[in-house]
């Protein structure tokens, strides 16, 4: 009971202090700048601080097309981030591959890493990104982001192992 409440409090803190890592690969980057700039101002939701090292961030924003050649780099960036971590696919290319259906484009970043929120649009309106951020905050509070669920599963498995021993 006490751990659940503690987790709730921690999640409340996490959802309002997301440190984002913008993995910007394409034209959606312009719209990301618009979201980050004062007019739409993602800072109002506590996610204003882009970190340029994945080791200091817990929100990976995949902004733009991911090519097959970039796959290993994207996976490595995700693996380096601190737990718990969340992923936002910004635009159709990051979500599904968009209008690319050929030899070089990956059909969505979720082929390589788990994605929590998908934002459609080519590029998405800044309002859509803010809406996605609010959805992600709700998800963080509920504790059912991909990495949060995985951490919970790992804890259960560890307890089972301890009990067996």
């Amino acid at each position, binding site marked *: 009971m006490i751990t659940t409440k503690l987790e709730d409090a921690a999640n409340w803190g996490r959802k309002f202090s997301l440190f984002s890592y913008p993995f910007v690969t394409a034209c959606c980057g312009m719209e990301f700048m618009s979201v980050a700039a004062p007019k739409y101002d993602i800072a109002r939701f506590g996610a204003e601080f882009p970190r340029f090292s994945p080791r200091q961030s817990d929100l990976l924003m995949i902004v733009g097309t991911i090519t*097959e050649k970039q*796959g*290993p780099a994207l996976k490595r960036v995700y693996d380096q981030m601190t737990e718990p971590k969340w992923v936002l696919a910004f635009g159709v290319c990051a979500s599904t591959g968009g209008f690319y*259906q*050929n*030899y*070089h484009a990956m059909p969505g970043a*979720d082929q390589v*890493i788990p994605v929590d929120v998908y934002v459609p649009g080519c590029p998405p309106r800044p309002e859509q990104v803010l809406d996605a951020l609010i959805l992600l905050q709700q998800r963080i509070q509920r504790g059912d982001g991909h990495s949060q669920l*995985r951490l919970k599963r790992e804890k259960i498995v560890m307890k089972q192992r301890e009990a067996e021993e």
Partner: protein
Amino acid sequence: MAQSVLDALKAKFGDAIERTESSHGDETAVVKAAKLVEIATFLRDDPKLAFDAPVFCTAIDLVHWQPVGPVLPGARPAYDGVSPRFEVCYQLRSTTFKRRIRLKIFVTEAKPTVASLTPLWPGFNWQERETFDMYGIRFEGHPDLRRIYLYEEFIGYPLRKDYPKEKRQPLVRRTDLVGDH
């Protein structure tokens, strides 16, 4: 515009210039592969030509190419499996005389080999690597002929018309989806 360049080439090299075309202010010379380096050196070093700038190098895959409209005498026939399949293009520009010329070399599918022009114009280095990456044209004498955009594990040449247009060759995929959810 550069008709005088074509005339100079024909006067100097004769049979090595297989065909010339002039269209919309662009002059093209189809040259024999064996004479390419000699012709290119002449274009660069002759003071009356002075083609000092490499503009681009690319290739054209003719495997599905069909003539459009009435077939004129001397026009190129459709690809029949025996005739040269690829057309390698070099575009040069003279910044002194403000004119440009295009060299074309036909190569076969069995032996897609052309002499590299990188020793003459270092600017063709990455252009030739891209042409090799996308079409599989081998440039003999290139200092570093590796893939430039794609990864070493990639099999085939994606801009050839017979590459399946939706075929992907993934380097990495998720492993956490199997038996974990």
